């Protein structure tokens, strides 16, 4: 197999290398391999990359039925960490690889070994209070989620200091994985800079 070409190497971005291979019948096949960004990594010997796996599973790397299981490694560009990949052409499972235990089983970032194969994204619910806050304050989640598709429920804990029982109306802007900007107004004319407490439930996902 021979390196035919490679796209320019840009820091932080993956590059694609093209290899040429020849089968026993003399047919030349080109294979694209996506190279991870960041520092050079050392892969274990005899381990297939995801591109080789996809070639393998799709039948261009080796002939075989589509339900044939395969194993490989995929580099996740986000966290620059290797992902274990296994499955068939129709269904592929991923799991993070961070190390091995004493039995040399691969461990995920949650300490599971690979045969347990937890799903890649989990739902996380964070329930917390935010005290002494006012309109336009930045409300942070206790811990960041790993994606921006967060749902939040805001409940005002305190009534207005003017003695009425009109609760403040709460909303948000700039919601992302780290937190949101609070909008908080009173329908009875209480200044929006009046501070109070909130109870918040945030539902999002973590990897």
């Amino acid at each position, binding site marked *: 197999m021979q390196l035919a070409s490679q796209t320019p190497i840009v820091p932080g971005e993956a590059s694609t290398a093209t290899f040429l291979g020849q089968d026993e019948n003399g047919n030349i096949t080109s294979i694209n391999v996506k190279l991870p960004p960041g520092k050079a990594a050392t892969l274990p010997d005899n381990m297939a990359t995801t591109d080789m796996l996809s070639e393998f599973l799709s039948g261009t790397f080796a002939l075989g039925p589509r339900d044939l299981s395969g194993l490989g490694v995929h580099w996740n560009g986000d966290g620059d960490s290797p992902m274990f990949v296994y499955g068939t052409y129709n269904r592929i499972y991923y799991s993070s690889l961070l190390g091995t235990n004493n039995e040399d089983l691969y461990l995920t970032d949650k300490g599971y070994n690979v045969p347990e194969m937890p799903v890649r994204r989990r739902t996380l619910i964070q329930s917390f209070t935010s005290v002494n806050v006012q309109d336009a304050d930045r409300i*942070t989640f206790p811990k960041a989620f790993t994606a921006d598709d967060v749902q939040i429920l805001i409940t005002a804990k305190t009534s207005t200091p003017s003695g009425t029982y009109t609760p403040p109306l709460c909303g948000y802007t700039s919601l992302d994985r*780290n937190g949101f900007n609070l909008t908080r107004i009173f329908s009875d004319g209480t200044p929006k800079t009046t501070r109070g407490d909130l109870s918040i439930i945030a539902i999002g996902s973590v990897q």
Partner: protein
Amino acid sequence: MNTSDYYALVQEDADLSKPVLVYGWDDQPHEKDGSSRPYHASAGYKAVKLDMADEAWTARLVAPQTPTQLYQGVLSPYERPVPTVKEQAKDALHHVHNSAVMIVAMGGSFGPQTRDYVAKLQAIVDGSDTVSTVLPPVPHDLKQ
């Protein structure tokens, strides 16, 4: 020894030589050999590593979340910028406006003191009064 590194997330263009508002919090577990892993902040943010013990992080997770600022590695309650007199005047006008709806609905009207008060607020808001540094005194009764 800590099991993770802890980070405060601030805006990507934040000037860390001044107090900056914290926009988020995150942790990054260490490798099995205890070494740190690089942390990649999401777009628009940068991560500032905190000198924080595991116990302090755990306590922070369950404590109420309050706006926090970071300056020279030290976390402290966020000091909100003092609103300008113009911003204060806008809020005061908003309050008078809300009260006016009720007064008019009940067949009343603003008295001369209130009209004078509103005129002064409007002058601050529209920029014709650039001298005042504090708001005019609020009338005791808006119908006066």
